[in-house]
């Protein structure tokens, strides 16, 4: 045990002597900077596990709740709605909702146009051979109180890909959300 400790100390000491000695260090002892130069990724600790504030007992329940909230908002509520969705999701879905919340909070034109979106979830189907992935079909209308640009548009069909994760046994949350059109 004592020999192993001594070896580790000497290896770190060599690492502190500058770049000219880098070639002498084994790969497992690369400094974060050297790793970053080699891989273009600065090593960082793994993020803490995410926990969603709400979970459903079944994947389809989780998807339906998420999708319904995602497509029903108006300019006044959309940022808060997206923040709530972020808290209720994990992974890419959470990141996407945080981004949407940040963008809509400062979206002058969205506010000025009085934009709103309404819709219903029409179908949720498992994606063949892709476990935990689902195809979500919605029927949506976009309206505006201060612009006529959307006037007369029929409700339109939209498709999104949803991925779910089991947060704990029997507790399902959204982990991925990608609107396709």
């Amino acid at each position: 045990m004592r020999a192993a400790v001594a070896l580790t100390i000497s290896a770190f000491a060599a690492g502190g002597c500058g770049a000219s000695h880098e070639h002498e260090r084994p790969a497992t002892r690369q400094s974060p900077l050297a790793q970053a130069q080699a891989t273009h990724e600065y090593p960082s600790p793994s993020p803490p596990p995410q926990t969603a504030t709400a979970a459903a007992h079944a994947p389809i329940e989780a998807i339906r709740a998420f999708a319904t909230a995602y497509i029903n908002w108006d300019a006044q509520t959309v940022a808060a709605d997206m923040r709530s969705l972020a808290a209720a999701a994990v992974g890419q879905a959470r990141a996407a909702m945080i981004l949407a919340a940040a963008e809509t909070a400062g979206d002058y034109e969205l506010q000025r146009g009085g934009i709103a979106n309404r819709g219903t979830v029409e179908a949720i189907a498992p994606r063949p051979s892709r476990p935990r992935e689902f195809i979500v079909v919605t029927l949506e209308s976009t309206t505006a109180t201060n612009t006529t640009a959307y006037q007369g548009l029929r409700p339109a069909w939209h498709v999104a890909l949803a991925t779910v994760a089991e947060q704990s046994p029997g507790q399902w949350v959204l982990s991925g959300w990608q609107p396709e059109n």
Partner: protein
Amino acid sequence: MIVAGVGIIVAAGFAAAMLALITSVFGQGDECAAPAGAAAPGGEGPGGGIVLGPAGTGQLVGATEYGGPGDPGSGVFGSSGANLLELPDSYAELGGTSFQTATAMGGLPYLTPLRVTWGTRSAIAYKRDIGLGGGPVDGLPRALDLWWQLAGRLGIPYEDGLWSGPVRIERPPDAGAGNMLGQAAQSAATETAAPAAAEEPSACTPAAGEGVPLTGAEHAQRLPDGLAAAPAGAPAAVQGIIAAGNQIAGKPYVLGAGHGLPLSEVAPAYDCSSSVEHLLYGAGLLPNGYDAPSGTLASFGRPGPGRWVTLYANPDHVFMYVAGLRWDTHNAAGAGDGSTGIGWHP
């Protein structure tokens, strides 16, 4: 995202004469019915569910009319298989001498919506058919055939399927939460597509925002010296627009000035359209030789409000909002608003 807006102008204190003029073009007409989405998917109800709106902008093209009791040969089913009597908000894309060449508008996919304007009325119509082309209509390329019930709703007289005339067409904005929130898979490609007005995209300058003051605020800020600070988080193209605006802010307004020069040059004076074009060039969105009046800018980009930039244009005037800050001619915020010449306005 750059878009040409068709919204109602609500700037308080805007010159009364101009406000009246512009709302007569952009404002909501009395005949406007239910809001978007009120139309039943099946097209039932008065007018077949076609919702009329005010006149839109967009490109002038030649149109004809088909179907109805005087044109039984057209039948009632579109080439998409749709029953046009049940879905009267329909049009056919025309072109060439065969159905394979019916691509006068680029070969639009079925169900592509278009806002079709005739006179003071407009309606959204969907492609559900294709047809043969023909000679120009009033000197315009013959682009689409309007189903007779749609044409009638627009006020076009029924002439047994023989009517022809000019209409304006434009693509309505992409709707739906994914598009509105910029998360739909197609959004990125759509938003970075070269605008239709830029005929020589390769001649456009790259977006440049070097030297532009930055602010940590969400919106652009008008500085005491009349220049503007761009949001630090704004895309490079937006910062490029603001940088170009700062180049010419405060120049005198002279009707017709600034035209006929390369957009890379700084002219002694500008009018509304030449100044807006200078700013768009600053973002690399127009070629250096571009030169057009304000009305042409009405079809620049995509219709509807933009996330960062919205143009408001008609044949008499054009102005724009960039990151929440208005670029316009003098006194745009009302007489005595403190501004001189062209520039940024609160």
